[in-house]
């Protein structure tokens, strides 16, 4: 009698259907455990029918799979045949459950408490310490070993990547003189930047998939710019550039709100499609709506002798989503 499943009392196997004194089961002359029920040949027929239909669907799956090439084989056909095969097996089993097995109602006790076993366990543990005189010292030593061994076990995880040194998060590929290229690698001419739209730019010769690489470039009316004094010469001809990576959670900014009726509508703004952080283009990327906590970093620009756009230096602040050091000074030490 396993204590895990409750004690069987003498009345535990009482059932409400069937006849306990009926024909003995298993040919060994003992009383029945599971009461006999009435046969139901119609139900048996239905079960066979369902299983045959299920078999046909399974065969249909195999035949379809074998006969057609991958592109000619409709996914719907495979899903329908396999799915319906399982469904019909389920129907067959439901008929078995409702008509072909006897559904008894039996009772068991819920497991009871065993306070004796609980106290005996506690007692055994207490008594096992009869030979120990300085328990706290031993436990302290064990704790010391366990703690340091735990540290040793965790230490190799630090090889997975840089941990103590977060300067990789600070780096971007931009420096004064680096030329700006578009998504196909062509250098961008200042004359090809038009108002009321935005362009994605990348550092020439550097990986595009770096958080610090992508920028958005727009042309605005220089008279409307209200940038901090230090950034006066960052926008040649009203062409202005910001990091494309939102300072909230790191999505690429892909929406540009341009004013359709400038006198009454708000000014141009960059909007991130993920959580709708909105950055004001004319005031240096300040957050005017949405959850972002830091303004969008701005990239200084100049136009070189051949008319191409080049970076005038690194960004005004660290790019991307924030972390502990993101606002630390200096912004970009020696880069």
């Amino acid at each position, binding site marked *: 009698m*396993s204590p895990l499943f409750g004690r069987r009392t003498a009345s535990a196997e009482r059932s409400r259907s069937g006849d306990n004194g009926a024909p003995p089961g298993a040919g060994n002359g003992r009383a029945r455990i599971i009461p006999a029920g009435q046969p139901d040949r119609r139900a048996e027929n239905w079960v066979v029918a369902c299983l045959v239909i299920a078999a046909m669907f399974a065969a249909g799956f195999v035949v379809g799979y074998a006969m057609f090439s991958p592109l000619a084989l409709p996914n719907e056909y495979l899903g329908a045949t396999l799915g319906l095969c399982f469904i019909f097996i389920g129907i067959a089993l439901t008929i*078995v459950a409702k008509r072909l097995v006897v559904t008894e109602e039996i009772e068991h006790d819920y497991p009871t408490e065993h306070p004796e076993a609980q106290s005996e366990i506690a007692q055994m543990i207490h008594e096992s310490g009869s030979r120990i005189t300085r328990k706290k010292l031993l436990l302290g030593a064990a704790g010391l070993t366990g703690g340091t061994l735990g540290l040793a076990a965790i230490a190799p995880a630090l090889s997975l*990547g840089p941990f103590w040194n977060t300067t990789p998060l600070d780096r971007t590929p931009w420096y004064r003189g680096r030329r700006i290229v578009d998504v196909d690698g062509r250098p961008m001419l200042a004359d090809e930047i038009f108002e009321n739209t935005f362009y994605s730019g990348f550092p020439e010769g550097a990986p595009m998939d770096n958080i610090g690489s992508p920028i958005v470039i727009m042309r605005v009316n220089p008279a409307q710019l209200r940038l901090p004094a230090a950034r006066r010469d960052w926008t040649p001809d009203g062409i202005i550039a910001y990091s494309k990576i939102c300072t909230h959670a790191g999505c690429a900014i892909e929406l540009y709100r341009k004013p359709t009726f400038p006198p009454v509508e708000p000014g141009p703004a960059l909007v991130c499609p993920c959580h709708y952080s909105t950055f004001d283009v004319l005031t240096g990327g300040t957050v005017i709506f949405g959850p972002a906590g830091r303004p969008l970093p701005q990239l200084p620009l100049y136009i070189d002798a051949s008319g191409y756009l080049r970076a005038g230096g690194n960004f005004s602040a660290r790019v991307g989503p924030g972390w*502990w050091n993101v606002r630390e000074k200096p912004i970009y030490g020696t880069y």
Partner: protein
Amino acid sequence: MSITNGRRRDPIEDPVRFIDERTATSVLLRAVMRYVFPDHWSFLLGEVALYAFIVLIATGIYISLFYVPSTAQTIYHGPYKPLDGQTMSAAYRSVIYLSFQAKAGLLMRQTHHWAADVFIAAIVVHLMRVFFTGAFRKPRELTWTIGLLLLFTSFLEGYMGYSLVDDLLSGIGLQIGYGVGLSVPIIGGPLMLLIFGAPFPGRNLFFSRMYIAHVFLVPLLLATLIGVHLALVAARHHTQFKESERTTNKRIVGAPLFPAQAPRSLALMFFTVGVLFLLGGLVQINPVWQWGPFHEWASENGAQPDWYLGWLIGALRLMPSVDVTIGHFTLFPNPVWGGVFFPGIVLMVLVAFPWVEARLTGDHGVHNLAQRPREAPNRTAFGVAFLAWVFLIFVFGAADRVYVLVGLGYQTLLLIFHIAIWVVPIVLFFITRMICRNLLASDIAAAAREQAEHEAIEHARALAGARSRPG
């Protein structure tokens, strides 16, 4: 029947004897066969989750044999023309191959994705059933806690699964996950550098790591948690509703596992598996060839995570612009509120609930009977309010879609939801509690009426009996 060694040969008893002589399991098996299942449809929800998990393992093994966990760039040349000549990672390429060039590959992929959604949905509905019937009370608090760990682990597992494809839509989600990870106070930066190996998008190794976590480490954890969860349910036996005189806190009444319950549970398994394959074949999900390969410098409007992470995108959108700084150091970058603290609070409230409820009601007794929701008005009202709070935040996660449907601008919706997520739960709390109390009162009144009728009939019978006796 022939008789050998003094025993009759029996085609069933012989193999049973063979196995028991070598494993000593007959006593256990005999008890297991008569394990009692109380009967209620809502007790099957956990089983549906279990069967969805089995489909996940089966289809997952299949698709893992085609997947390449590498972000090495390759150029696509294959039957899907819109992508022809495009540069993409080997991972994305392997999923496109599986979808178009491996027979039954798309079926397995879509069934796997549907099974993940159904798995988590079944857990959530099962959680609500357990909560509203008080089945988490002593002695089942540990089962409840393990169930919550299962739920949150499955969020992570699903997220990693669809992110492995390296398409643009899931890649945006991974980028956001990186941003949320960075926002973990103080250690976020080092932690993300450790996991990704470098600043986002990380080294090529990152996808290998996510792959091993998704196909081995986390499934191992899930399977272990499921095993412990089921063992605990079996050890304490299932709760039951008080449906007859014989069901009590000490006595469980229901159908035995064998032969009554087994075909029922198996039928449910086959129905679940069948529906999942029907969905995988007939209802398109996650058509990754339409999203295109991932590039960290591209995004798209209207992007949503899978449904079970909708509550997190809602929280990230709803939280106003607040960074907490100490001097030049940023203690709480903004994503930490919606991405870390909000799910943390939800998990803690749910885990603590059995203990807090026991404290507040002073009820530390063992409960094997499930309650009807109306029998615990405060708990039901709190559950409805908490659910409404999380649900409204979840709805806001799709606010840009709601705008397209309803025409209310995003800023208007933000204002409405900023108020609604607090006001609606509070109102619902009081309304729900009132409804529960009224239902209880009318139940008691109905029971009292029945009792009075019953006594009146007995009284009348007694009188009639006295009159009809001679003398």
